[in-house]
Structure formats: C-alpha cells, structure tokens
C-alpha cells in the first residue's frame, strides 16, 4: 500500500525546526537585508552593536523572520530579538516554526 503512515491526511507533527536549520535560515534572512554587510555577519552578531543597524532595520529583520518561519511574534517578544543567537534560540524553541 502506498500510504506510509496513518497521518498522511492530517496535519504534520508540529515539532518546530532544528537548531542548525534555524541558524542557517536566520543568517540567510539577515544577509538578505540591504543594509547588512555579509562579511561582518557571524553567528553571534548583535544587530545594533555589531552590524550597526537601526532599530527600524531590526523591525524589518524581525518581520522577515515572521514571514520565513510563519510565526506570530508579539511586540514584547519582538523587542528582545536583537541578535542572531537570540533569534536562533527563539525560532528553534518555537513549536510552530515551519
């Protein structure tokens, strides 16, 4: 029979994504921002201190995370996502990250 398991018609298990995948995708999104210098971007970059970004640029990057991972990020949480490790931590721990 072609059906591999009995969940083929129901929603997939929502376990979130792995840390490595989260890191890769977060770096990709930050790199895509026009004001970011890819040479300066590391795994532990702080957006405002290391990359020299404005608070509005951080808002744009957080919106990029929301669209990429299909997440709802409330304002209070979004205020805290100001560095690459913070973002990777948040996304990897979120159960609904796609």
């Amino acid at each position, binding site marked *: 029979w072609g059906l591999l398991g*009995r969940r083929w018609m129901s929603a997939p298990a929502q376990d979130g994504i792995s840390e490595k995948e989260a890191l890769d995708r977060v770096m990709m999104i930050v790199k895509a921002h026009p004001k970011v210098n890819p040479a300066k971007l590391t795994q532990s970059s702080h957006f405002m201190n290391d990359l020299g970004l404005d608070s*509005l640029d951080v*808002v744009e990057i957080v*919106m990029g995370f929301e669209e990429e991972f299909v997440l*709802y990020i409330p304002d209070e949480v979004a205020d805290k996502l100001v560095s690459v490790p913070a973002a990777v931590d948040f996304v990897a721990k979120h159960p*609904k990250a796609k």
Partner: protein
Amino acid sequence: MSASLTIAGLASLAARRDAQRRRVCRLYRKALHHTLDWVIFREPFYKEASKLRARFDVNKDVVDVDAIERLIVKGEAEFKKFQHPEPYAVPWSPEGVTYARNPPLPAEVVVVKDWGREDWSTH
C-alpha cells in the same frame, strides 16, 4: 529645560526616549504589516515599504522629546485612519482563524481505539 540637566532629569528623559523608541518601532511594525495587507504582491510591497521607511527616516534626527511625541501621535492617528480592516494573521495566532480550533484533549479523556479500523497501516 533646567529640570532636564539634573541627574534624575536626564534619567527620566532617557526613559521617555526609550519609551518613544519602542512606540515608534511598534508603529513601524504595524504599518509594515498593514502595508503588506493592502498591497498583497511582493514587488509593489517592497516599493511601498521603502516609501514608508523614507517617511520615517525624514524625522530620524529629531532630538526634542516633545516634538517626537507630536510626530508619534500624528503617525498613530494616520495609521488608525489607513489600517486594513481585515489584517492577515498567522492562523494559529490569537488573531488568526484557527486559534483554539482543535485544542488538545484534557488528560482525563482517553481515546480508546479498540476496533482496529483506525490503524490504517494494517490494511
């Protein structure tokens, strides 16, 4: 202005500016989301987002706290006028359509599958 030159005055000024910075960021965030709701396609959205960012950048260097306050109030009033009536929200979020649609069953409820027909893989 003499009140702001004391240590306590400067601290409260810094706190006020911090609060204003947060308000501006939240206004920008909501405005960006609602712009995407009005302009559904990506390419026009990037143009409109650039225009919005340019409008915010015009007032980037304002230092006077009261002037910033006035600008924020004006911006929020304009946002209220032009916000989208049905903004898109991620389905499982509190503003989304499938919020609490299938909540997990309480622990007391035990689903007993005793006919074997639920186990499709045995077919």
